[in-house]
């Protein structure tokens, strides 16, 4: 650390002095924040948008037009609006529906989930459409229902192809949690801004530090999913 300090003329003591604040925000005296909140938002929205993306994707390729059309309209709407807008919009929309005091963190979680689900649905849709039609025809002619063909033949193959695109989308999602700051949710970026605005003299150190933290979180997630991917493909090869 001393070495880096002396070379670039940087002073990372601001990180050391505010270490706990970067990590957990005002917790336990106030709401949780910092890295802990960023991770919570990331894990939560990755989980829910995985499910949401799958559901929306399946509905989007439904054979029934009255299912497919509205779903596609919803998907196109959210894909056509900046995420910042979606968060801001939900921030004022959700309390109007569910009453005052709807927590900001849930708002952000829902906004991230809905937005990312819309993107994920397109991956799911493409994945399903990439499976040759012959498999559908073969399945149906051997007496399976379309549903059985979907769940037992098409999806298992399609999902495996989707994994890299999923990971890509999730990494993007982890970084998108930084947009939560606009509704006053103290995730890592917001916390960094608070410290920066108080100390005023160390913007380089502070924002370099949080860039590294985001990089580490995203890399760790990518490495984890590579392992998962390797395991599912080898399990398939052994079958």
């Amino acid at each position, binding site marked *: 650390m001393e070495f880096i300090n002396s070379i670039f003329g940087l002073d990372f003591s601001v990180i050391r002095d505010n270490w706990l604040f970067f990590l957990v925000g005002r917790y336990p005296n106030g709401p949780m924040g910092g890295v802990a909140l960023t991770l919570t938002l990331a894990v939560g929205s990755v989980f829910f948008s995985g499910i949401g993306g799958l559901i929306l994707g399946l509905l989007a390729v*439904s054979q029934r037009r*009255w299912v497919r059309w509205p779903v596609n309209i*919803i998907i196109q709407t959210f894909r056509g609006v900046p995420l910042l807008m979606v968060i801001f919009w939900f921030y004022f929309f959700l309390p109007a529906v569910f009453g*005052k005091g709807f927590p900001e963190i849930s708002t952000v979680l829902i906004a991230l989930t809905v937005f990312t689900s819309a993107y994920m649905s397109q991956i799911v849709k493409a994945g399903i459409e990439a499976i040759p039609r012959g498999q559908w025809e073969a399945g149906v002619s051997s007496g399976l229902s379309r*549903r059985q063909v979907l769940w037992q033949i098409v999806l298992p193959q399609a999902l495996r192809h989707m994994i890299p695109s999923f990971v890509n989308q999730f990494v993007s999602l982890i970084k998108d949690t930084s947009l939560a700051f606009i509704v006053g949710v103290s995730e890592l970026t917001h916390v960094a801004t608070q410290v920066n605005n108080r100390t005023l003299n160390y913007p380089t150190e502070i924002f370099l530090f949080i860039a590294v933290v985001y990089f580490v979180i995203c890399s760790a997630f990518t490495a984890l999913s590579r392992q998962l991917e390797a395991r599912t493909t080898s399990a398939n090869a052994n079958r």
Partner: protein
Amino acid sequence: MTCIQFPSKVQSKIQFLVVFVSLISILTGISLAAHADVLGDVKKKGTLVVGVKDSLPPFGYVDEKSRDIVGYDIDMAKAVAKKLGVKLELKPVTSANRFPMLSEGNVDLVIATTTKNPERAAQVDFSHAYFLTGQKFIVAKGKVKTLQDLDTARIGTAKGSTSEKNVATSLPKAKVLSYDDYPQAVLALQQGKVQAVTTDEAILAGLLAKMPNKDKYEIPDLKISDEPYGIAIKKGEKGLVDVVNSTLLEMESSGDADKVFAQWFGPNSAAPLKRTFKITAEK
């Protein structure tokens, strides 16, 4: 992979329901409006939610040791919560989002260096002024003697603030750059992107005190407006306005208002100022 097998008619009904419910919830949400009587709500839930600045010493900022939001505005919020006998919850707001948050009921009060002016008073109700300051500039030392010296300058300030408006009126030829918050404007000043940063003197003093090369900068005695700060309350909430006002007046008469001022702006503080005002029912 397995899945629950519904008969296909049931399945199609479920799918229809999912689509229908999500559409309805989106449509109805827009038409629902929030209801009135914030004071009653506050007492019922036992918590007063106050929107404050969290990055603006000494009005509201996160203390390094306690990791809590502290400052002059926060002490005002504490006094109101104490008067009501409820818990205090602080929510960070910015100059740009504080009024939408108030009108949507995300916060009950806004105590965030909010200048009272007639334009805003049409949107929200204000308490008596709890702080009085004036809009000035931070500039490089010795460069600015009169307002003319800033005539065509690039001037930094914060989005959605009265400072942004005032400077455009008093220096129409100047180029005003609005940043997210004042510290970013100060950074721009240090990097030479702007020649001056303008906002209320009390905020400028706090910013100047933190600047690394502060001896190179100064706040010349050029005031372009008076800025009385008020506590903002949703329009038509008379009960809450009365409680807030009586709290402020009691603080003045008991000497608490003096103490709070001395703590954040006294001679030993980072940004010493003189208390040139009293909280009265007139302002």
